[in-house]
């Protein structure tokens, strides 16, 4: 009755099918059956390293950033960021180049001329060079914590805080915002307020604004506050086009002067006669209108924004920023980035002060307040790493071109008073989702 014969094709097929059933379900069992599927509430970890380097031995920064984002379900999200920022290099002190050597004291010096028992660090600038403090060193530690949650069906509440500390500067800030969705979530109205409180305690003390550099007059610690507000509309325009328009207003009050900036005071021929500490108004109101578009063109996403800024110091600015995220296959993307910026000068900005004219109340030679245009070009290359990771590298080049770089005064001929600034930005990022 029992016969041993070669196994038939059919039997082989049935054997294979049975084996497939029993082995596949052995795996399925562990993954599926009894335990209820876990709700995924991923933890997102971002680790970034920023390297920023300016040309001509100026500032360079190495900045590690770690960010954690935890989704507690139901769109309740906690987001924390920790930043460590180490700056070093030379930073312009505001004085203009001259055909003679110029000598300055580092801000931490207790006087301009060496005195017994007092620490004085001097630096001398060669003729034709931009005066820069070569001993500039700073370390900043900053932390941000943000919480976001729905409030009812159509509202989102978010609030958060920011703390940052440096040797000469402490800042604490808080913000809160509410957004409301309507029109089937095609339109979102947002509003928010923020408040920032800063304490400035410059190395060697805060100079008395506008005072003669030679007198080396210092004041105790100073403070400033910034209060701001935002309203915005986000609108879905089509299946692949999202737009947002934000209006922000903020008002700074208090010590807005840069404690490390001075101005050259020149005579009628352009020879440097003395230096003065800068002095800025103690209020500044800024407003900006920001318009951003996200447009999907197939798998490519365009991010195009324009910002118009204006402030009570008469600085007007325009910014156009464009990014194109291009998927190169399933795992790699390339994101070219271009940015164009221009600003007009603050009404109290000047490259230098003239001995002959009436002395202004407010004055600054801070290149940040000059008229200039700037461009950024770069790209980011990202690729998935493992199942839930992404690795990316961003390389960018920033260049600032001041409008006013020379003077007609005879002693200043042939000098570039406010040279171009070039900076390289390298950012390495790793993103992981649990």
């Amino acid at each position, binding site marked *: 009755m029992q016969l041993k014969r070669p196994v038939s094709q059919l039997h082989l097929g049935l054997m294979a099918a049975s084996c497939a059933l029993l082995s596949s379900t052995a795996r399925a069992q562990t993954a599926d059956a009894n335990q209820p599927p876990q709700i995924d509430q991923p933890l997102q970890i*971002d680790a970034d390293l920023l390297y920023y380097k300016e040309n001509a031995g100026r500032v360079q920064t190495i*900045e590690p*950033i770690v960010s954690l984002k935890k989704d507690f379900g139901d769109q309740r999200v906690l987001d924390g*960021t920790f930043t460590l*920022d180490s700056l070093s290099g030379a930073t312009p002190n505001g004085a203009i180049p001259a055909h003679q050597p110029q000598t300055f004291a580092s801000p931490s010096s207790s006087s301009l001329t060496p005195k017994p028992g007092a620490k004085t660090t001097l630096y001398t600038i060669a003729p034709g060079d931009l005066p820069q403090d070569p001993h500039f060193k*700073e370390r900043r530690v*900053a932390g941000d914590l943000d919480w976001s949650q729905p409030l009812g069906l159509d509202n989102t509440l978010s609030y958060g805080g*920011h703390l*940052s500390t440096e040797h*000469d*500067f402490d800042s604490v*800030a808080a913000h809160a915002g509410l957004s409301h969705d309507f*029109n*089937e979530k095609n*339109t979102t*109205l947002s509003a928010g307020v923020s408040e*920032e409180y800063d304490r400035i305690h410059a190395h060697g003390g805060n100079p008395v604004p506008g005072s003669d550099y030679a007198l080396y007059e210092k004041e105790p610690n100073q403070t400033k506050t*910034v209060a*701001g507000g935002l*309203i915005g*509309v986000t*609108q*879905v*325009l089509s*299946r692949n086009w*999202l*737009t947002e*328009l*934000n*209006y*922000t207003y*903020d008002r700074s009050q208090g010590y807005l002067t*840069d404690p490390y*900036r001075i101005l050259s005071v020149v005579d009628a021929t352009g020879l440097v006669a003395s230096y003065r500490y800068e002095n800025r108004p103690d209020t500044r109101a*800024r*407003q*900006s*209108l*920001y318009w*951003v578009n*996200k447009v*999907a063109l197939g798998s490519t*996403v365009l*991010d195009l924004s324009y910002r*118009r800024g*204006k402030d009570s*110091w008469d600085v007007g*600015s325009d*910014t156009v920023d464009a990014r194109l995220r291009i998927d190169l296959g399933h795992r790699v993307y390339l994101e070219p980035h271009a940015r164009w*910026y221009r*600003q007009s000068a603050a009404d109290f900005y000047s490259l230098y002060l003239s001995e002959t004219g009436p002395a202004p109340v407010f004055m600054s030679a801070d290149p*940040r*307040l000059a008229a200039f245009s*700037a461009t950024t070009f770069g790209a980011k290359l990202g690729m998935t790493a493992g199942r839930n990771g992404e690795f990316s590298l*961003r390389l960018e080049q*920033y260049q*600032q071109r001041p409008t006013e770089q020379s003077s007609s005064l005879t002693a200043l001929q042939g000098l570039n008073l406010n040279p171009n*600034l070039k*900076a390289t*930005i390298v950012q390495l990022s790793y993103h992981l989702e649990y």
Partner: protein
Amino acid sequence: MRIRTVNCIAILLGVLVIGGCSTLGVKPWQREILARPQMALNAEPIDAAIDDHIYFSKEAASGGRSFGGGGCGCN
């Protein structure tokens, strides 16, 4: 000048809101492209924060995207 700017903003916002209510937008079930992470307005928050920080320390204008940059001496 400032008043004119503010007026312009108010008109623009108004147009968007009113326009939004009537015709613009998509049905709730047509949001698959908008739901892609790359389409989020803050798709790359850390890149944005880094940019804000760099430009805050080099330019007079800042912020706009959300609240103005700040919180650093940035000289």
